[in-house]
């Protein structure tokens, strides 16, 4: 089935945007409520029978989640990734979307995983419950507004780390130049909002460390 | 001694008087039968004492033997007539509505007495027919359709049987010219040819109809199934035995030859196997009992085939034992009968009837202390002494029959002792004479268990006395006649 035929099938869905990335990759953007019809269409008409994954992206800025359905066809040797955007919702009314379990059985696991990691409940999915993080009952951890490092800082106590072998080294005058805590606090990355500022702070700390090392050569 | 003729005359006379008496008062009609039977019983007892160890012949109408009718009185025939009187008294239908049934019963007893006593062939045949007619009448008395069908079938078979009996007698008459058994006994040599033996075969099968012999006993199950339990007790218990007596008289006096014995043996064995096999599948109490009685009569024939006084002694013992046990079982069936499943849990309702039933079965199977065991042991011992393959086959058949009997009898006992559930019929608890008589029979059985050796000695004497032809000939044919002949 060449490109024209596949486009002709795909265009049956109104409001669809198709981009042929490679011979084996087609990206399709479609709005939320017409995605299930698209999946049904390509499964029925175009032998895209294997749903290999459902992934979710947290666009915190646009307050949206992006759900990507990767469907593979053995005959075509080609993968269609259907992108759609759903509203991110908030604490009070969490994000919701329709489940495709009746089309593809594996969807059960993918939806359960996204529910656990992002908090998106899929209506009609058989088991909307904890999957991997059975011990975790906090905020869905993959959300952008969840800061893992901050969580770690206040749950785990950083005791000072001076094992006896370090004791011997320091007695002989050696030891660690810059304590890991200094790097950590100096870097103080946890209230930096963007990556770039964090990297800049890290580089400064490293330069300070090299300077200290200098005296040893 | 001549008063013994009354035995046969009185019931005949009563049979015709009862309908007339019934016109005046039904109660009188009710009692005439039993009164007559009691008189007969008294006569028999007095004769028993008078006869002592000898024998006596009555020539009716003064005609001398080869011509006239002869009654032969000895312990053997008196024993049977006594049994007839008491059995008919026991099964007397007190609650019969119209008097014709009483006259039929009177007719029946008259015929039986005749069979037991008479000593010449033609007379035997007449009484045999009278007996058959009486039984048709009684069977047909039942109102339901299956009874009439059964009696019809019985009519066909027994009439064919009596035709064969008549044919046998005719052959003997043509061969010897006489019908008096004693006279026949003196000229046995020309009866031992092929014709003689075929005559014996015909007589045996003819009488066999009544004696439930193998080929001709298909009527047994239907008839016993439909007639009242008391009557089937009488028929199975006694009447069949009378037919066997007829065969015995012929066998002992005339046909003491190996071919006859073999015939009886084969027929007996077939009877045993067929009876047991079908009883094994029977799912209904009465059907099982009737087929079991066929089997036991088969054993009787096997015992007869031993021949001589030993054979006769065993036959008498088996007959008495079978009368007690089968008669008792049929009388018991009056209280509980019908399909086995309906008998579930019976032992819990009335342990007494179950115990009595058990005693009868154990004696039937031949469990040691009970008399059944000793009879079976003696039978098997005698058969073994005769040696020969056929006799060992007979032993095998008898013992196989015991095993099959154990199987189906104890299946029934097992259902009895199970827990009663919904569909088992409640016992008809109303008082019935036959149940008390059944208990009496059981008591008799247990008592006889203790006196096994004295009873067996008495039976041996009777057998020896009546089994040897010389005594018979001398009493029946006066010396004068004999003197001329030899």
């Amino acid at each position, binding site marked *: 089935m060449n490109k024209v035929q596949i486009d002709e099938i795909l265009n049956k869905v109104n409001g669809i945007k198709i981009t042929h990335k490679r011979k084996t990759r087609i990206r399709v953007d479609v709005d939320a409520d017409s995605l299930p019809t698209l999946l049904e269409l390509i499964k029925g008409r175009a032998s895209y029978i294997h749903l290999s994954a459902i992934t979710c992206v947290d666009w915190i800025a646009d307050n949206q989640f992006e759900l990507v359905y990767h469907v593979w066809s053995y005959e075509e040797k080609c993968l269609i990734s259907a992108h759609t955007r759903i509203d991110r919702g908030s604490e009070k009314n969490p994000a919701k979307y329709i489940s495709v379990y009746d089309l593809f059985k594996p969807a059960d696991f993918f939806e359960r995983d996204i529910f656990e990691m992002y908090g998106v409940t899929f209506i009609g999915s058989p088991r909307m419950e904890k999957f991997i993080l059975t011990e975790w009952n906090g905020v869905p951890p993959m959300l952008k507004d969840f800061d893992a490092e901050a969580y770690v800082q206040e749950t785990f106590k950083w005791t000072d780390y001076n094992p006896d072998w370090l004791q011997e080294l320091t007695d002989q005058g050696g030891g660690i130049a810059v304590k890991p805590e200094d790097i950590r606090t100096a870097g103080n990355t946890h209230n930096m909002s963007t990556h770039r500022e964090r990297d800049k702070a890290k580089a400064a700390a490293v330069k300070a460390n090299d300077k200290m090392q200098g005296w040893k050569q | 001694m001549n008063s013994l003729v009354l035995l046969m005359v009185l019931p005949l006379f009563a049979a015709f008087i009862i309908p007339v008496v019934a016109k005046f008062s039904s109660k009188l009609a009710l009692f005439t039968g039993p009164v007559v039977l009691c008189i007969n019983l008294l006569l028999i007892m007095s004769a028993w004492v008078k006869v002592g160890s000898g024998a006596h012949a009555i020539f009716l109408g003064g005609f001398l033997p080869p011509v006239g009718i002869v009654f032969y009185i000895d312990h053997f025939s008196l024993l049977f007539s006594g049994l007839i009187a008491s059995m008919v008294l026991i099964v007397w239908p007190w609650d019969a509505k119209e008097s014709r049934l009483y006259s039929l019963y009177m007719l029946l007893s008259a015929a039986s007495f005749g069979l037991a006593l008479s000593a010449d062939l033609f007379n035997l045949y007449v009484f045999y027919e009278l007996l058959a007619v009486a039984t048709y009448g009684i069977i047909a008395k039942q109102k339901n359709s299956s009874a009439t069908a059964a009696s019809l079938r019985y009519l*066909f*078979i027994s009439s*064919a*049987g009596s*035709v*064969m009996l008549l*044919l*046998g007698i*005719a*052959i003997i008459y*043509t*061969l010897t010219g006489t019908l008096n058994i004693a006279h026949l006994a003196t000229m046995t040599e020309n009866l031992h*040819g*092929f*014709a003689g033996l*075929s005559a014996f*075969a*015909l007589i045996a*099968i003819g009488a066999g109809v009544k004696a439930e012999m193998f*080929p*001709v006993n*298909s*009527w047994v*199950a239907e008839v016993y199934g439909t007639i009242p339990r008391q009557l089937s007790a009488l028929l199975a218990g006694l009447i069949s035995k009378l037919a066997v007596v007829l065969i015995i008289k012929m066998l002992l006096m005339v046909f003491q030859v190996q071919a006859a014995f073999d015939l009886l043996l084969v027929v007996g064995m077939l009877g045993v*196997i*067929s009876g047991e*096999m*079908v009883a*094994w*599948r029977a799912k209904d109490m009465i059907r099982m009992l009737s087929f079991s009685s066929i089997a036991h009569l088969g054993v009787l024939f096997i015992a007869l085939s031993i021949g001589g006084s030993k054979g006769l002694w065993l036959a008498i013992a088996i007959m008495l034992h079978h009368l007690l046990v089968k008669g008792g079982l049929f009388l018991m069936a009056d209280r509980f009968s019908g399909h086995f499943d309906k008998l579930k849990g019976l032992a819990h309702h009335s342990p007494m009837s179950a115990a009595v039933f058990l005693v009868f079965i154990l004696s039937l*199977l031949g*469990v*040691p202390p009970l008399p059944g*065991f*000793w009879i079976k*042991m*003696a039978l*098997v*011992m005698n*058969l*073994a*002494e005769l*040696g020969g393959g056929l006799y060992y086959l007979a*032993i*095998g058949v008898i*013992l*196989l029959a*015991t*095993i*099959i009997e*154990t*199987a189906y009898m*104890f*299946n029934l006992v*097992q259902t009895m*002792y*199970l827990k009663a559930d919904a569909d088992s019929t409640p016992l008809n608890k109303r008082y019935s004479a036959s149940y008390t008589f059944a208990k009496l029979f059981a008591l008799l059985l247990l008592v006889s268990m203790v006196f*096994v*050796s004295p009873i*067996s000695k008495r039976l041996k004497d009777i057998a020896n006395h009546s089994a040897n032809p010389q005594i018979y000939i001398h009493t029946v044919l006066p010396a004068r006649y004999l003197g001329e002949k030899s």
Partner: protein
Amino acid sequence: MTLLDHLFIVVFSCLIAISVVRNLPIVDKLAPVLYGLILIMLVRMASVAYGGDAYLSSFSLDLLGFKMHWQFTALSWYFAIITLVAALASAVFMSGDWGRQYREGGGNYGMLQLALIVNVFSMILLLGSGDLLSLFIGWEFVSWASFLMMVLSPSKLAKKSAVKYIVYAMTGAMALMVAIVMIYAVNDSLEFEQISIVFAQMSGSSQVALVLLLFVAFAIKMGLLPFHLWQAVAYAETPGPGAAFLGAISSRMGMFTIVLVIVQFIGLGGLKSVGTSFANMQTLLAWVAALTTIIPTYIALQQHDAKRLLAWHGVGQGGYMLLGIIMFDSIGSAGGLMHVLNHASYQAALFMTVVAVMYRTGTSDLNKLGGLVTQMPLTFLVMLIGIIGLAGLPPMNGFVSKWLVYRSLLVNGQPLLFVAAVLGTLGTILSVYKLIHNTFLGQLRLEHQNVREVPWSMLVPMLGLSVIVFITGFMPGLILPWIASVQESVGLPVIAHHLGGIEYAKGGLDMIWVSGILFYGFGVGALIFYFLGGKSKRVHQYDNYAGGHFLTSDVRYHYSNNFYPGLMHLIGTWYRGSFQWLENSIVSVMSFFSVFFENIYRAKQPVMLLLIGVVLALLALYRNLGVGA
């Protein structure tokens, strides 16, 4: 009035006493006392067991020309003492709390007591028989008595299996009657000596017939191979200690009669002379015995009901006894005879433990039990001693008799029989471990948390029997003189014995030394265990390694179903029907014939038969007249 008459009178009066008083509460006290009384009467006659001559009874019956008299030889005394001990133990077991529970459960307790005394009476009668007819009468009494015992349990299956038993028993009795008749027919006497005289005169084929008939009769009662189908189900379904009694001794009456009739009067020469030199009767019997040790044992391995398992072992162990006896040499026959006593002791004890477990937990299904060792330790101890005996391991008496049987197989050079016997033993060890593991070891179920030990009235007989098992194992010399006197009375070579065991030229057995060494080993092991190692902490059954999984009480992880999967893959397919087809074929043949005959009776044209007969007769007449005139 010899001692034997006293014995008969006492036993009969006990029968009357118990039948009168069976429904009153005092029967619980009276029954054991009566059995004790009979035991004392028996002990008074002990001289016969130490080489004395047989006791003749003054009773003798002469019925219908058959003379019957009674005598008590060493053989009968040996079996009688086993019967009485088993009866006493089951009576004591029955009369205590078990009886109360049986009564409340709707069982007919009085009848059970009566059945037990009837069994004892009939067995004493059989053991005391002096000639063939009294033997037959005793044999019938014993069959009917055990039928009475079996038919008492309310379940429908029990009644069906009881009826199946009585049919088998009657077949056996009839076979015996035919044999007796064959012997009587020759010279009109029923004495035991007649057997050998008649056997000598008989032609080859009738010899085979006589031996086969005798063997069939006794094999049915003992449950040897072709006729073993009835025994397991019937004994398993008998109520409570009745099963213990039947399992212990009832089927060994077959062994008594085999020794009495076949071994004593037909003897080795007779057996060897029957049939060709290679396949003579002795090898046939030996192979029946060998197969009987193997097949029922591996059927027992598959049972998941404890009583069924033990009953199947009863069948299997019967094979050992016959295997021992059939060797006809001193140690083999001693082994076979001793195995009767040994088996009676631990089989009764094991059945009682299973009944005790049923008394407390209500079920004997091995898949519904487990972990009862902490709740019922004494019952566990009795079962442990019992299974060591049943498996035939050293300290217990089972080992002595099995050693004797093996030793005789070794001396007679029978490799295949030797392997067959060992297969039987190993099968026993496997199934016996399954029994004790599934009931007492492993995970304790929630519903059995508050199960308690059985009351003393049930423990005393069990412990008594296990003491017997141990004592006769530790010092087999106690019962070897009985066996020596039995061998002497039956005409077998007598075994040389001393208190510890058996002297034998090429390697004897001294149980005192062997057990001594074993206990010394255990002592040293205990010494090492308790003194060299430190303290050990008792832990709960959920504190267990399960691959990091937290064990909770709702998960049932006790491994009991399909206990030997490997073995079952290999041999399971052979045993599926456990030889049920043997029985079904006979039944189908029978029903075929009965249908055939039934059609004859239903046939509508009997008159046709008659007419044919008449026509034939006419034909004969015509021919005759032609000739006669």
